[in-house]
């Protein structure tokens, strides 16, 4: 047994004629305008409750904070000075020269270092404001799915990962299984409003309370051939949706294009099949290190270590059995 993580190939085949090609998001943060339409369209379609304390969070224009049980698309706002921008450009340049697979085909990456068509690398701005819409990664090797004891989480025919709220018992095992901190158990009770008077009027019942919740990739739209709500609404097409192969391809093209313009800070996240989760179903074009956007730099599916642990456990168990056997033998002699 090579891995205890799910065999996505076989999962796909299990759907037989229903099986579709694997779907993915490509979120191009270089054209994100931070409008948060994705957050709202997601909430509206999925009837997710309003989040938070209705107070300024202290994080630029971000007031929802992070992905969670009720917020399945989250837009981060990052304000950076010139120093930070230069570092981002330099770190991206290093990725290019290392020929890292996450930054596109080497041929194009090589061209990025120098300017083409007389295009000089842009002057480093004194300031920039990064915006990026985060979402569940729908990993190739999905930790949440691997650890779910009830079969509530499953791999859909689109290669996405979804919770079946009618099966989930709210055990929360998946929460620890996600290397991105995406999936979360939805609190019971009603959503708090800022003041008492608002509580009465705007109080909102929580659907699926007590179960694990995260982006469904709008499974209920996919089955009807529709685009997920966030991608459908995105004004600038920063969120693109399609077959994963096509998304990876356009992501690589876009990053090469930006490199040609001298924007070596551009890099891909989630497109590398050799990363700790086997690549993701949500690919991002970032303009700085992943940590800057609140993304783990090197996510690893926890179950990836299971085979090794399993072997050790088997060894240990064998040892134990042997010891027990020995003791029996020895004891029998007594």
């Amino acid at each position, binding site marked *: 047994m090579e891995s205890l993580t799910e065999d996505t190939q076989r999962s796909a085949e299990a759907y037989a004629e229903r099986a579709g090609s694997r779907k993915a998001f490509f979120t191009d943060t270089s054209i994100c305008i931070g409008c948060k339409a994705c957050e709202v369209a997601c*909430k509206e379609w999925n009837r997710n409750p*309003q989040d938070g304390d209705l*107070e300024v969070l202290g994080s630029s224009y971000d007031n929802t904070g992070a992905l969670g049980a009720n917020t399945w698309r989250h837009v981060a706002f990052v304000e950076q000075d010139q120093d930070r921008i230069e570092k981002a450009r330099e770190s991206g340049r290093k990725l290019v020269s290392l020929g890292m697979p996450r930054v596109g085909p080497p041929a194009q990456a090589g061209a990025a270092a120098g300017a083409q068509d007389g295009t000089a690398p842009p002057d480093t701005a004194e300031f920039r404001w*990064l915006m990026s819409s985060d979402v569940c990664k729908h990993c190739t090797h999905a930790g949440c799915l691997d650890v779910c004891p009830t079969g509530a989480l499953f791999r859909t025919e689109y290669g996405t990962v979804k919770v079946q709220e009618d099966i989930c018992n709210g055990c929360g095992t998946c929460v620890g299984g996600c290397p991105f901190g995406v999936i979360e158990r939805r609190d019971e009770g009603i959503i708090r409003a800022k003041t008492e008077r608002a509580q009465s009027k705007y109080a909102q019942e929580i659907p699926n309370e007590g179960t694990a919740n995260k982006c469904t990739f709008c499974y209920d739209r996919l089955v009807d051939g529709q685009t997920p709500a966030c991608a459908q609404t995105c004004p600038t*097409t920063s969120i693109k949706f399609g077959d994963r192969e096509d998304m990876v391809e356009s992501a690589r093209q876009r990053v090469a294009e930006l490199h040609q313009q001298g924007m070596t800070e551009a890099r891909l996240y989630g497109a590398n099949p050799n990363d700790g989760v086997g690549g993701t179903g949500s690919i991002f074009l970032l303009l700085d290190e992943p940590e800057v956007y609140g993304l783990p730099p090197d996510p690893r599916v926890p179950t990836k270590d299971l085979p090794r642990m399993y072997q050790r456990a088997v060894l240990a168990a064998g040892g134990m059995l042997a010891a027990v056997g020995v003791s029996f033998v020895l004891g029998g002699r007594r």
Partner: protein
Amino acid sequence: MAECHPVGFQWVTEAKQRGARIIHVDPRFTRTSAVADRHIALRAGSDIVLLGALINYVLTHDLWFEEYVRAYTNAATIISEEYQDPEDLNGLFSGYNPEDGTYDKSTWSYQSATGRETVGEPGAETEDDAAEPHEFGAGGPPLSHANVRRDETLQDPRCVFQVLKRHFARYTPEMVEQTCGISVDDFTYLANSITENSGRERTTAFTYAVGWTQHAQGAQFIRTAAILQLLLGNMGRPGGGIIALRGHATIQGCTDIPTLFNLLPGYLPMPEAGQHNTLQTYLDSIGSKKQKGFWANADAYTISLLKAWWGDAATQENDFAYDYLPRLTGAHGTYQTLERMLRDELDGYFLIGQNPAVGSANGRMQRLGMSHLKWLVVRDFSLIESATWWKDGPEIHTGELRTEDIETEVFFLPAANHTEKAGSFTQTQRLVQWRHQAVTPPDDAQSELHFFHELGKRLRQRLAGSQDSRDRPLLDLTWDYPTDAHGEPDPEAVLAEINGFHVSGPDQGEPLSTFNEMRADGSTAGGCWIYTGIYADRVNQSARRKPGQEQDETAAEWAWAWPANRRLLYNRASADPQGRPWSERKKYVWWDDEQQRWTGKDVPDFPVDRAPDARPEPDAGGPAALAGDDPFIMQADGKGWLFAPHGLVDGPLPTHYEPPESPIGNPLYGQQSNPARIVLPGKDNLLAPSALQPGSEIYPHIFTTYRLTEHHTAGGMSRFLPYLAELQPEMFCEVSPEFAAEIGLEAYGWATIISPRSAIEARVFITERVTSLTIAGRRVHQVGLPYHWGVGNEAVVEGDAANDLLGLTLDPNVHIQGSKAAQCAVRPGRRPRGPELTKLVEDLRQQAGLTVETGNERLTVPWGEPQDQPRGEQ
């Protein structure tokens, strides 16, 4: 644009990916700046210096589009010998009257080709007869005739081109740096970008929103951009123009079919007592039959409107019931009405989907005004602050008002929303789009159509049988619209009336297909001439929904654009004087020699068979007087106006003045602020002393107000929605790190912002998105304030209203308030509660020595002593 019109911005994003350069000029760094090629921060209110310097750059570097400018603008037209420029008069134009702050505009006139006399307004015998701007409608000012003197060499020192050169000569990159806080490097980048991207092969577009309009000279901001775009040949061409990004679903429609005091539908003016006592004097004032263009047919448009309203009661004998129209006596805008409220001169007020308690400038004055009403009707979706100020408004908290003392009766009537009624919205590009009804309104909710139709019916019932002539206009009104089972009038029937129809003749009852079919003899009726054609062939053209992907980029079969389904105005200018496209790349509308017609990708905005070389008979007037190369068909001489001889009351050319409240002295002229601005002095509308006067230092900083993507204006449609409220839950201010350090503001803590009107509190966002600037050698700090929050108990989120800080000073052309640049003081921490708040505001007023006159002095240069040497160094 990304901030406030995100979906429109998709086209900018796409253009940028195809190589377009996006430059964002704004005091604050917004979501637009984040994705622009460059953000250029400027001091709020200094735009004319920047735009004027670009004009100067284009002229001095000979970068103007010569063929376009010579043929299509009034560059060659000779101006009156009497005209004197602000360069001659230290900031004033000739003709200023210091008594009432108005200009006699006769010295700004064109010279007549036939002699030395000038070309005035038709019917204006004396200067007292000259019209106020609100009397023009938006049809533009008329000329008595179009036979003007020109110097085609552009060398005559009195020709517009030379006047323009002299006027903007001191608007240099250095002046920009000193006044706007923009570096010479940034200015050069901007100037190079737009000039390199203009000409035959390329066009540059300007987009703006209320950041340009909401100033005491907002109309002139846009005029400056118009001059620049004319010089670069960017008007009437694809990818060019000046695009007004209007803020509301049908704010364009609200101007076209206006609920505005000075306009009738189709930009016909409301009649003014004394000047328009008869139909004839009214019609003469709109357009002379001898001037060029389509305003010469205003008689047909007006009489068709009167026929639409009063039907058979409008006859040739009674001048088509012209006397049924009420008359203006000066301005009756929303702020003048507010002053009347405070004087107890107004009994009743209808608020229809509008929240002035939060959304109008000087919110405290608005709420106090409403407390003087006898009755108030609020029609809205939720209990907005304008409906509840009597129980939970800020003045109840300070004790200035006591609920049990307020006599005002308040009616809250729930309104139907956009899914609960059918009707049309006109979006920002004049595209009229029909909405279909999805559901019926809940409970008591009604559409405005239903409510006002019903109200009208009941008024008429009550007056039935009245012999009082004052009641005739109501009783004779055509008001019998078909209704459905719920009593809702058929909106298409109303649309058909707006479109117009034949009253008599062989086609009686049939809809008109174009406004050219309108007649001045009473044989046609039509409620808004520019919308004629929207119901052509008895088809609701605004409901057309041929998918965009099945059409070319003009998408002419999606909805309907006024006028005549034309998508790009003045598109005759997209071809050269001979009628050929300026370039293959930019071809749009051109002359087809074979067909002897104008053709192209859009409905030509020109008489369709007027050949490029056509020259009118000398005595012709109206559309017949347009030469084949007069693309600006609504202008009285067919030309784009670099210099506006009529139509603006504060100058034929834009000139930089400081905002009424500015800590900076005008670096260009002795005249500090627009001398023709409308002032509304009063104890509830105190202003800070402008620069260099004692007390100015009490309010040393500049604040500006703006919107956020997550909210909608005064919040009536966003703060009551949990999904939007959570995204921007609290009122905040944005300040630079330098300023925060200087006065001790803590990140995400609180600040109190104090103006002469009020004090508010806001969470503090310390960010490099706001820049402190060096202006005329001193550091100037700007405070950014979104204005979506208000004090009340009904919304999901509440907060102090930025508009409470603003004073009222109006643009004299359009009576819009300046709300983009004013003075304030800032202190760390939250504001005091209760009466202490009033005391804080009062303390600062006393320190600054404010009186009702402060900041309201119009003239700041010595009168009658024109100075030889203008201020400022050159």
